[in-house]
């Protein structure tokens, strides 16, 4: 009876000792760790931050969409601007233009082999060239050049006797005019009766007109060089 008592007390004391030590170790860990209630605080903050994060994510998606649309619009605008720029460069004569058109050769009256003199006293003047150019323009010429000199907005065609200056460059006969545009329209305009070509032919000048599917009018800058 007594012995049983000792054994039970002994056993219970062991269990008690175990419990107390476990508790000590657990609480000492708590003391090192986070204070009580901190976990709930952190959980609340976590959920708040997660909500914020999802909000931000939505905003990111929204802004990405907007950016995408903006860049899409930008691309179109860019291609439109490029087209405009190309057109402007063609119009300004900064690039060589290739396309169908006509080729006109104007020359002064032939020298007669027998007499060594021209059949008439007529020579092609700057005004004649200007008239031809003017006619070609109204016929829808997109690009013009005379003897390699591209005709642009600032181009002058001026008599600087005995030569004609185009783009401050002397040109000599025969005058070789390249015109890019609708060949039929251009040729019809040139051949019109009572027109400038007929007038020049009557005065004895040699005028040849050829349509061509593939002509290249040189650029203005290359003409200057």
């Amino acid at each position, binding site marked *: 009876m007594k012995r*049983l*008592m*000792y*054994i*039970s*007390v*002994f*056993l*219970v*004391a*062991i*269990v*008690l*000792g*175990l*419990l*107390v*030590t*476990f*508790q000590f*170790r*657990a*609480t000492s*860990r*708590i003391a090192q*760790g986070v204070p009580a209630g901190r976990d709930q605080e952190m959980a609340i903050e976590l959920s708040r931050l997660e909500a914020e994060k999802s909000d931000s994510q939505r905003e990111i998606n929204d802004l990405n969409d907007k950016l995408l649309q903006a860049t899409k619009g930008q691309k179109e605008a860019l291609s439109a601007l490029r087209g405009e720029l190309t057109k402007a460069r063609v119009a300004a004569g900064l690039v060589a233009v290739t396309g169908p058109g006509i080729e006109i050769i104007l020359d002064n009256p032939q020298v007669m082999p027998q007499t060594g003199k021209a059949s008439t006293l007529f020579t092609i003047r700057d005004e004649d060239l200007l008239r031809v150019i003017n006619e070609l323009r109204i016929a829808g010429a997109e690009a013009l050049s005379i003897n390699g000199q591209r005709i642009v907005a600032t181009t002058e065609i001026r008599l600087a006797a005995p030569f004609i200056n185009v783009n401050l460059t002397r040109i000599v006969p025969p005058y070789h005019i390249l015109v890019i545009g609708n060949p039929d329209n251009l040729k019809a305009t040139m051949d019109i009766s009572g027109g400038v070509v007929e007038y020049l032919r009557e005065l004895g000048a040699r005028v040849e007109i050829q349509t061509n599917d593939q002509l290249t009018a040189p650029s203005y800058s290359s003409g200057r060089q």
Partner: protein
Amino acid sequence: MWLGIWALLGLVLGVTIGLNIPLLFPLSFAKYMSVAVLAALDSVFGGIRAAMEDTFDHTIFITGFFSNALLAAGLAFVGERLCIDLYLAAVVAFGVRLFQNLAIIRRHLLKK
């Protein structure tokens, strides 16, 4: 007197085992454990007192020890779920009994 020596021996052995076991309870159990320790302590003091009064019954002692510990831990657990600090009831009840038992033990020791 022998009883006290046995109890001390058991306590020392338990503490040594507990310190050397790599096993650790999770932190969330610490609250229940603390109340259970208090209940166990009360049971041990009750047992010592009963032994001094020569009314010791080891069945009552052992069952009392474990049931007190379990009830205290269970109260703490339920209290946590119900948002009431129910473990306070266990702390007060066992605390009061602890001091009563200690007082009686002291008187028995002094009477001898």
